[in-house]
Structures are given as structure tokens and as C-alpha cells.
């Protein structure tokens, strides 16, 4: 009950009225869940299921995509008018509405949709307790940035009495500390250089842009996984286990593997409820079923990130490489047999990283043409690397170095000596203190650090 109250309170911080939107979603989904389970006739089941899904997707589309659709439509009309009637007059989009998406609306609807599908498939039973169901969706550690939790993973934990346990609290706090470290020391630090360079791409040389793009990959990862660690840590302190969301994706040896390690709660959501059903339904097409499923999944996944063509290009790039990797998997395997394993790993990691970095250019750019500008400049504009403030670069590189060090250690040498989980209480705590000191010393708490432009 307290959890629900804190979730509602957290939600109402930004705009109190908006609490009615998740409240509505919760009520509809909760009711439909029970009715789907209860109904004996398939038609009735289907009707409730469809109704709830339409409400959920409808709300999501309304808040996230209305402006995108209307302005795209107007752009299209204007394009036609210019081409066919060669007029320069344009229709202005007067349907632009000022909608601010409610906090975490896509996370909430994804969780409700997953829940409805599971009940429809008959895999899990519907939640009868409205309070529990609401708590699942408004559990405050995961409202803003996920993970996209599964009802059948979370709800049983709610039923158990969750007494405060020392090990939970200490593990949770540790994870929060590490998340804070990634967010404040690494991600926010990198973002200073990244936004200075990518935000003014037209003034920068190719080498500066490449550096910024590479930094951006680490920034994204540190930022997102840092948030996730904090969310998981908070949940752990309260006695809940949320889904793991990142599994060292930057060390993936192929893009296919990458997507199994990056934003796992979302990618498995898409695998379970989108990709697999499509691929299975179309399995008689052979390889084409995979191509078709990959592309549709990643276009939708790209679009989910935001209503902009850049995200669709981002999705297309993922769909494309996944298809290529699928088709060439046997050839690549044969080649791999002839090369030493570590060379293989390095090449795989390097390729995956570069490809993801490349696709992130579209993810970051404000529109598709400015993404192409950046790419063009990377390959054509010579010049020295932009270092206005060496301190920011040194901090950034140290952050990246530290992140890679920890990730490689956890991936390949995990059984080796550990500071984070050292058996000696004193050593362990000194390590946490050092992390804390680095956060105080090198974390970015505000905009006090900046790169001042003079062009």
C-alpha cells in the first residue's frame, strides 16, 4: 500500500492531473484481464482482449505520435503540391497539439500489453487484486526508465511478505552506488563533449566527430545502464528483484548478440510478443520470415524510441544487419574456425561497436539530413581534434577506461580477485568509499562544467 502511494506521489510530482491516465489504463487492463480469463467463449475473450489492447495502444499513440503523424501528413501534402502544382505555398500544420506524454507512458503500456497477451495465451492467471496490479505498474523505481517488467515476475514477489533484509539493503545500496557512478561520473561527463561537438557538427572536423560518436556510445550505455542499476538497486532495498536489463552489451561479438544484452527487458518483450509470433506465422517463407520479422520488429522498436524518421532509420539499420548476420551465420562460423579465438572476439566486438555507433548517429541527430551531414563530415573534413578544455577530455577518457576495465573484468575474469564483492569487509568498504570519492570528485552534478563556444 505504501509502495502504491509512493508510486502515485512520484507520478504526480510533474503534473498531478496526469495520474488519471495511468489510473485509467490500470483499471481497463485489470478488468479486461479478469474478464479474458473468466470468459468461456473465444469470441468474448477476443473482444475483451482487443478492447484493452486498443485502449492501451491508442493512448500510447495519442500521446507519443499525434504530432508526428499530422506533420508527416502535411509534409507529404506539401511535397505533392510542390511537385505537381509547382506552387511554393504551403499548408501549415494547424493540428499540432501541445501534448506532453505522461511520465513513462510507453513503459506502462508495454507492461500492460505484455500482461494481456500472457493472459490471452493462458500462460498466467489474471491479477484479481487491483491494488497489487496498480503497484506493479506504478512501482516508483521503474516508472521513468524501466525495466519493462513482466507481471508474472513481479506480482508473486508482491504477495510474499517483504521484510527488510540486511543483504537486500546492502546489495541494493551497492547497486545504486555503481549506477550513480556510471550516470554521474561517466555518462554526464561524456555528454559535455558529445553535445558540444554533435550539437554543432557543422563546425567540427571528422576526427572530432568520430571521437564524439564513440563517446556517445559509452554515454548512452553508462547513462541507461546507470539508471537501470539505480532502479534495480532501489527495488532491491525494498525487497524486490526486477529484471536484469543490461548484460555487458558493449562486449557483444555480433549485433545479434548485442540486442540480447542491451535493454534486455525491452528486447525480450519484442521477441516474445512481436518477433516470434510474426516469424512463426510466416515460417513457411523460410529465410524470408526472419528477414520480414527482423525488419518489422526493429522498425517498430525504432519508432518506439520517438516519433521521428531518425529512429526509423536506426531501426532499419538494425533489421538490416540482423538479417545479414543471420544469412551469413554459417559462413562466418566456418571462417571463425580458421582464426584464433581472441582475434575473432576482438574483431567481433570491434565490428559490433562500430556498427552500433554508426546507427547511433541517426539516433542522436535531430533529423535524417543532419545525420547524413555528420557522416559526410566524418569522411571528408580533415582537421585536428577539438580540445577546448583538456580536463574534460581526460575525465572522459578515464571514465571510459574505467568502464571498459570493469566490464572486461566481469565478463572474462569474474572468478578472479574482486573488490566489489571482496571477502574482506574492510577492503570491500574501502572500494565503495573510493567509488563515492570519485563520484564527489568527478561526478557531474550540474551544468557548472561547460565548453564555451566561440565560432
Amino acid at each position, binding site marked *: 500500500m505504501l509502495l502504491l502511494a509512493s508510486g502515485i506521489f512520484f507520478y504526480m510530482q510533474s503534473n498531478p492531473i496526469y495520474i488519471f491516465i495511468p489510473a485509467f489504463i490500470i483499471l481497463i487492463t485489470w478488468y479486461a484481464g479478469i474478464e479474458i480469463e473468466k470468459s468461456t467463449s473465444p469470441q468474448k475473450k477476443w473482444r475483451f482482449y482487443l478492447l484493452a489492447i486498443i485502449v492501451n495502444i491508442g493512448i500510447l499513440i495519442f500521446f507519443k505520435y499525434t504530432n508526428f503523424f499530422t506533420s508527416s501528413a502535411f509534409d507529404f501534402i506539401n511535397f505533392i503540391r510542390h511537385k505537381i502544382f509547382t506552387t511554393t505555398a504551403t499548408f501549415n500544420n494547424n493540428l499540432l497539439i501541445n501534448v506532453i506524454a505522461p511520465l513513462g507512458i510507453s513503459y506502462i503500456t508495454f507492461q500492460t500489453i505484455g500482461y494481456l497477451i500472457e493472459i490471452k495465451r493462458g500462460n498466467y492467471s489474471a491479477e484479481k487484486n487491483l491494488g497489487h496490479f496498480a503497484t506493479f505498474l506504478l512501482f516508483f523505481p521503474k516508472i521513468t526508465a524501466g525495466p519493462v517488467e513482466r507481471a508474472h515476475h513481479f506480482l508473486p514477489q508482491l504477495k510474499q511478505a517483504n521484510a527488510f533484509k540486511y543483504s537486500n539493503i546492502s546489495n541494493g545500496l551497492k547497486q545504486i552506488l555503481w549506477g550513480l557512478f556510471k550516470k554521474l561520473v561517466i555518462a554526464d561527463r561524456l555528454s559535455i563533449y558529445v553535445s558540444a561537438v554533435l550539437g554543432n557538427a557543422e563546425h567540427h572536423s571528422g576526427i572530432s566527430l568520430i571521437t564524439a560518436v564513440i563517446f556517445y556510445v559509452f554515454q548512452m550505455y553508462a547513462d541507461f545502464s546507470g539508471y537501470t542499476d539505480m532502479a534495480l538497486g532501489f527495488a532491491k532495498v525494498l525487497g524486490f528483484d526486477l529484471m536484469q536489463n543490461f548484460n555487458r552489451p558493449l562486449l557483444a561479438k555480433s549485433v545479434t548478440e548485442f540486442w540480447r544484452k542491451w535493454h534486455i527487458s525491452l528486447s525480450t518483450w519484442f521477441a516474445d510478443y512481436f518477433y516470434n509470433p510474426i516469424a512463426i506465422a510466416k515460417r513457411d517463407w523460410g529465410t524470408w520470415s526472419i528477414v520480414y520479422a527482423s525488419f518489422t520488429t526493429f522498425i517498430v522498436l525504432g519508432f518506439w524510441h520517438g516519433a521521428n524518421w531518425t529512429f526509423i532509420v536506426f531501426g532499419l539499420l538494425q533489421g538490416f544487419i540482423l538479417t545479414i548476420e543471420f544469412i551469413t551465420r554459417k559462413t562466418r562460423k566456418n571462417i571463425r574456425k580458421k582464426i584464433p579465438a581472441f582475434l575473432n572476439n576482438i574483431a567481433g566486438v570491434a565490428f559490433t561497436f562500430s556498427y552500433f555507433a554508426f546507427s547511433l548517429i541517426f539516433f542522436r541527430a535531430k533529423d535524417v539530413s543532419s545525420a547524413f551531414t555528420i557522416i559526410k563530415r566524418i569522411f571528408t573534413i580533415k582537421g585536428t581534434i577539438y580540445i577546448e578544455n583538456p580536463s574534460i577530455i581526460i575525465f572522459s577518457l578515464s571514465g571510459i577506461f574505467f568502464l571498459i576495465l570493469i566490464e572486461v573484468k566481469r565478463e572474462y575474469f569474474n572468478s578472479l580477485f574482486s573488490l566489489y564483492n571482496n571477502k574482506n569487509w574492510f577492503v570491500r568498504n*574501502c572500494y565503495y568509499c573510493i567509488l563515492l570519492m570519485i563520484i564527489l570528485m*568527478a561526478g557531474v552534478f*550540474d551544468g557548472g562544467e*561547460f565548453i564555451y563556444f566561440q565560432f
Partner: protein
Amino acid sequence: MIKLAKKISIKQGYVYLFLKVGVFLLLAFFFDFILGSFLSKFYFKQTSGWEYRTKFSIEDTKADILVFGASRAQQQYNPLFFEERLHQTCYNVGRDGQPIFYYYAVLKSIVKRYTPKMIILDIENEVFKEDQSSYDRISVLLPFYKNHPELHSIIEQKSPFEKFKLQSYVYPYNSMLFKIAIGNTEFNKKRNIDINGYVPLTRVLDEQIRNVDLSKKYVIDSIKVNLYKSFISECLRANIKLYIVCSPYFFNSIGSDTSMQLATEIAKRNNIDYFDFSKDKLFLNNSKFFDDTVHVNVEGSKIFTNKLIDSIIFKSQKQ
């Protein structure tokens, strides 16, 4: 002792948790103190760089004439001309990207130590614009919190939590580690020389003059306006001759900037001399005196500083 420890370890409850947290906090305070003292020592030992110049401005300078402002002070006013023509020592305390909080803080520390004879305050368009980054940038003053009570009221403007964050010995030096390290070497001296705080710009702008509409409305931050008023009254109280200056811009301004209007009005009300170079034809007709549209280069600085000194001499002779 062992018995006690055993008793506690058996009681895997709140007591155990609090004890561990307590010991952890002690350990953290210890680390914080050691590292913070270390950073502090080297911060105040710097011999070059921006942090050094801030430290020099707040704690060391004894110059008769001081120039206050942001980049448009730091990179445009050459103190050597003041020294040569007015026969008084001069230091440029301007700092790139810093808003009025910084000027006022430096002024307060200085008047606590000694009374300069003349102060020149450079103000620019949008100087009173409401802007979160202005508050964030107060961070450069954090190292002075412990030993400069006169700065408390300004530093605490940064955020309501600042007081608590500043309980840490390390936090004031946040983000400064490498700057401090570099400031303790000779590196900066080679990279950008400063002449009594003045940093010359060397590029030559080659571009047609543009029109810039300044009449756009924005939110005025009343805290900034009040600091500006306090800056003036502080100078009046200490009997320091204050000049307020708007240095040259390389664009034709359309309309006038809200902050600028307000600033000149307040100056006038207090009988402060105000010099406006933003519409000076000599600069508007010569892009070669500029590094970019809002900063003069070395050549421009020479002409600008001397023109300003001419005006100051002319004004003082008239009085």
C-alpha cells in the same frame, strides 16, 4: 569484545545494519577528509590556469584598477595600457562564461582585503537573463566557501542543498582534479598566456556585418538585477570610482536589449559613468578588429582599451 561482536552478528537486524552503515560513514568521512585536504593543498598551490586566476583575484591581487566581467572583460581589456597611461597597477579579474554572481563574489572578497581605486565593469546583452547555467557556474567559487564567510550568501544561491554538499571536503573540488594537476605544471603558461589576467585573442574575423534583433523579450532574473545594484552600492560605499562599459559588438543592433536598458537606467540613477562602444563606427566598420562577432582581437583590444582610457581621462578632467 569478541562476545559483543558475536552477539551483534547473530542479531542480523537493524542494529547490525546501522552499525555497519555507521562504520562505513566514518570510513567515508575519513577518505573524504584526506582526499579533500590533498586537493585543497594543490588547488591553492596552482601557478597558472583559470582556477589560479580566480584564486589570485579573490585572495592576492592588490591592483589599483580592476576590470570585472565575463569573456568580454577577460579577452578585451589589456591592463598594460591602463598601467602605462594612468600610472596605476591594473588587473583583469574577468572570467570567461561567468555571470554576475562571480563578479559580485570577487568584489566582496576584494573590498574585504583592500580598497581598489577604480573598477571597470563590463556588461553585455542578456546580462540579467534568467538562466539555470548561471547558477550552476557558481561552482568555481566552491573552494572558497570554507575560508570566505563573505561568499556564503552568494554560493548558497547555487541550490538549496549546497550547504549540505559542502560538508564534504572533496565536493568543492568537483571536476577540478585535472585542472588542478595542470595548474601545478607549466603547461598553461605555454598554451594561453595571460597578461595581468587579460587573454588576447588572435584570430581575424573576415565576414560581412549582420543585423541582430535585440528586442526579443526574455525573463529577467531579479536576483541578478539585485546583485548588480549591490555591486554598484558596494563600490559607492567603499568610495571606488566605478565605470560601467559595454564593449564593441560586430553587428548592427536593431532595437535594444532589455537587460542593457535596465543596467544603464540603474547606472544613471546612481550617477555612474556608462560608456557604450556597441555602436562605435570604428568597430562596426572594421571586422579586422574582431576575433568573432562578440570579442575583439589583439588589435581591436589595443584600440578599444585606449579609446576607453581616453573617455575615462576626458570624464575625469571634466569633473
